[in-house]
């Protein structure tokens, strides 16, 4: 058990942090820039990619609390009041269970939508309460605050209550918020009672209750128009920020996506969804043919090419050092250079690394001495290993840059064997995956992973040391990837013969990883071995289902061909790579590589699991 005050689980998930707490550690990225404009948005990203943080940062309370050199720029850019509407799996399950399965579909739907609408309206009132708050925290810069005197607030609440068919005890925003809370309680009670009634009679009963039939967009529009009028803001805009769209019942998801075509120009919708979504087709259609005057932008929260995320990682690194009170230090000085990246931190040193006795030259020599296929490859390419010290710099550059990541893993893992099929060295991938750019790549610029690892590294290294030893880096990377695998191992999958055959998601990933490892390391030297895969038509549905979970969890990453299609309805025909977080587990180079079909990978017996027994189908559930 941990002695540290804030724990891994508690520290790096913004979902339930107060907006001000989110702002405290927020580092803007290109994604925030893409999201915060005056348009509808769909944020697409796997777990931990920062969807919730980005949405939460659009709330007035977060923007007020944000202390960052770029904060002022964004205060100008965010020209609306953001209303964050949280959702989670457990609430989705509660709505699903309303009426204990005894309600008709129609009655259940009526009550579910009413519960959802009530939740949205309450979130709107919460934001209004922030905007009219009279207390001013001297540390915060007011953002979109308005003055509403008691009479105006009272009149606003009376009018909006009339529109929302609700009776707060007193005409105040706070009382209205509490009345909405009570309404949620009433909805459950109705559901429970309705479960015991004839569903046709209950349907008629529900028809009489006006408050159950509000449409959330209409109800929100009515309230913001009133609020704008009382606040003297006229056409001021508001944005509804919906997190975790998938956790809402299907018909609510449909309603939200249709709301992207909202004609109310005062209302923006910003949604966060996972890469695979049953709504993806509707989003794509809406994106390609928006309503007149509306603009819908999709924001991709992952980096197919590892280098695209480096700038964000560097910003996060700098911010974390500052937050800890450490003096700035270049990450490559603190963490070292990457095995996989032959570039150097300064051009002046470039000739050294490729030149005689340079690190890469030595690595090439070391591998060529043990790997006949590599030796031959160099000779065919016109750079015999014997001449590598004297070859021209352009010649060395041309070849080394291209094959450096492959050389890194082969040199690291292959035994001292000059045979046609070199044997594996029994080495753990201890320090191979260390160094600044490797760490950046391995975290996939996923804030949760990056902060998790770097926080631990910084806490284990005294500031005066200035250098974080590679074994410490390796241990933390290993611990994070093992924790990730442990979570994936218990991720729910649909019951199928394939789920058993692959032994779940982790077994499937292991087959893919093992295949890539063989191609990159164990077989004859190939400067461009396959490191990504295309989900072809021969892949069966249960395997697709496991891959979907892997995609939404960030274990595989989609390599989009078309940036207008970021959220997917199906994985078929699309290209993916394994997350670099798994690279150390399977001994893979940190590079995208060529693509091969998934069915080719799965048909290859080399990737089959060699350990563990597969249980017989339909055994054992009495004790679950």
């Amino acid at each position, binding site marked *: 058990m*941990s002695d540290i005050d804030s724990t891994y689980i508690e520290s790096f998930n913004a979902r339930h942090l107060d907006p001000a707490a989110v702002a405290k550690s927020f580092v803007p990225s290109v994604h925030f820039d893409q999201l915060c404009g005056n348009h509808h948005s769909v944020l697409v990203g796997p777990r931990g990619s920062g969807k919730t943080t980005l949405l939460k940062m659009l709330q007035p309370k977060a923007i007020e609390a944000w202390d960052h050199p770029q904060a002022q720029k964004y205060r100008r850019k965010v020209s609306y009041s953001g209303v964050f509407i949280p959702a989670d799996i457990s609430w989705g399950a509660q709505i*699903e269970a309303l009426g204990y399965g005894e309600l008709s579909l129609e009655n259940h739907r009526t009550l579910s939508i009413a519960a959802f609408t009530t939740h949205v309206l309450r979130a709107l009132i919460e934001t209004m309460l922030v905007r009219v708050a009279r207390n001013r925290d001297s540390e915060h810069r007011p953002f979109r605050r308005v003055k509403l005197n008691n009479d105006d607030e009272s009149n606003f609440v009376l009018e909006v209550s009339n529109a929302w068919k609700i009776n707060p005890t007193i005409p105040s925003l706070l009382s209205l918020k509490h009345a909405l809370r009570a309404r949620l309680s009433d909805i459950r009670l109705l559901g429970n009672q309705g479960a015991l009634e004839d569903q046709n009679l209950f349907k008629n009963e529900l028809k009489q209750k006006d408050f159950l039939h509000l449409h959330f967009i209409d109800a929100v529009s009515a309230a913001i128009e009133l609020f704008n009028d009382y606040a003297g803001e006229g056409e001021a805009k508001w944005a509804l920020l919906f997190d975790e769209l998938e956790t809402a019942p299907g018909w609510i998801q449909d309603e939200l996506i249709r709301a992207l075509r909202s004609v109310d120009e005062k209302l923006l919708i910003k949604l966060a969804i996972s890469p695979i979504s049953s709504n993806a087709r509707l989003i794509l259609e809406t994106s390609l043919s928006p309503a007149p005057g509306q603009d819908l932008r999709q924001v991709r929260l992952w980096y197919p090419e590892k280098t695209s995320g480096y700038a964000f990682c560097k910003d996060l690194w700098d911010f974390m050092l500052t937050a800890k009170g450490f003096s700035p230090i270049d990450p490559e000085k603190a963490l070292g250079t990457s095995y996989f990246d032959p570039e150097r931190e300064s051009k002046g040193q470039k000739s050294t690394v490729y030149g005689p006795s340079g690190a890469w030259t030595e690595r090439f020599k070391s591998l060529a001495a043990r790997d006949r296929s590599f030796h031959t490859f160099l000779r065919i390419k016109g750079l015999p290993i014997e001449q590598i010290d004297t070859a021209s710099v352009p010649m060395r550059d041309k070849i080394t840059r291209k094959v450096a990541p492959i050389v890194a893993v082969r040199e690291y893992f292959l035994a001292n064997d000059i045979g046609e099929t070199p044997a594996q060295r029994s080495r753990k991938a201890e320090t191979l995956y260390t160094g600044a750019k490797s760490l950046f790549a391995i975290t996939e610029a996923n804030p949760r992973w990056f902060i998790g690892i770097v926080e631990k590294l910084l806490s284990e290294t005294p500031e005066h040391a200035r250098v974080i030893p590679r074994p410490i880096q390796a241990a933390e990377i290993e611990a994070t990837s093992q924790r990730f695998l442990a*979570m994936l191992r218990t991720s729910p*999958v649909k*019951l199928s013969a394939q789920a058993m055959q692959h032994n779940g998601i982790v077994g499937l990933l292991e087959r893919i990883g093992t295949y890539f490892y063989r191609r990159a390391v164990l077989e004859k030297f190939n400067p461009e071995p396959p490191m990504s895969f295309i989900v072809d038509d021969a892949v069966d549905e249960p395997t697709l289902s496991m891959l979907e979970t892997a995609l939404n969890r960030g274990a595989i990453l989609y390599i989009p061909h078309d940036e207008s299609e970021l959220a997917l309805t199906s994985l078929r025909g699309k290209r993916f790579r394994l997350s670099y977080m798994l690279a150390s587990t399977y001994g893979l180079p940190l590079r995208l590589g060529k693509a091969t079909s998934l069915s080719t990978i799965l048909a290859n017996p080399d990737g089959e699991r060699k350990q563990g027994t597969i249980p017989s189908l339909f*055994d054992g559930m*009495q004790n679950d």
Partner: protein
Amino acid sequence: MTRIFSVHPYTAGKRKYDVFIAAVGFEARAVHVAQSVEIHAERRIAIGFKDRHTLNYSANKNWFHQNGFEYLELDDNEFRTTLLNVLSELSRDTDHRPTLAIDISCFNRYRLATMVDLVSTAKIHATHINVDFLYVIGAFSPPSTHSFPNTFVGPISRQFAGWTVDPALPPAAVIGLGYEQDKALGAVDHLQITHVLAFIPESTVPEYFPAVKSANASLLGTLKKTNVFNYQVDDPVSCFYTLESIINGLSAAYNPILLPFGPKIFTICALLAATKHPNAAVWRVSGGELEKPSDRAASNHIVGLTVCFQEDEQTLSKM
């Protein structure tokens, strides 16, 4: 209708019940309570499952049959209907106070939830129902080395999905740990819960304790010491009150979700605690058919919990 209840330590001894209900499972321990505890009941029912008739299932079924038990082979839906009928038959008039003994050792968690739900909410004439929940601790056998994915993560039953009046509150997990490798961690990850409290069972079978800690090392390594509790399996009353108190404390700032892995007596405590707090949900995580059945012998240590349910209105009028 909701009945309130009080919990008391179970004390072994000659006692008369209206009904004794046991589960016919595939574990060797399924018959242990019936064999070891002197239970006098007017009706004795052994309830089996429609599938997974493996390991000791047939032997257990035969034993119950030979010892005067009615054998009913039911699916989960039929189980609910049957139990409701049993309760209804026992309470034809308001004066009679039905008494039940239930050996929970080999019932699945859905059936445990159904029991607690029905005795606390079923519309029957009886105003009072007394239930002794009995549980035999399994003799230690090492956890399965075979890892399997989960095929179900969700509320233990619709009645225990919980209901929050503030969906914006974060969920908090209250987990009873078992010794399945990283199962609890997977549940926490699936639900994206950031506030976790873990309960580690301690019992008269000491081998479990290190096995549970080892299987959950990844999760425990991320928790503050103050968020980890040990509980005594043979003291379910204390366990219930601790859970109840924790849910009470959490409810102002969180939506509690209970995840009962490990000994089933903890599941009963969790279900009872959630009954007192309708905002709290009770979830289960299961590998379903992917879980390989494994035998579990009895340890000779039987624990129990006596729960007295009574109608809410009556109690209120007495106060």
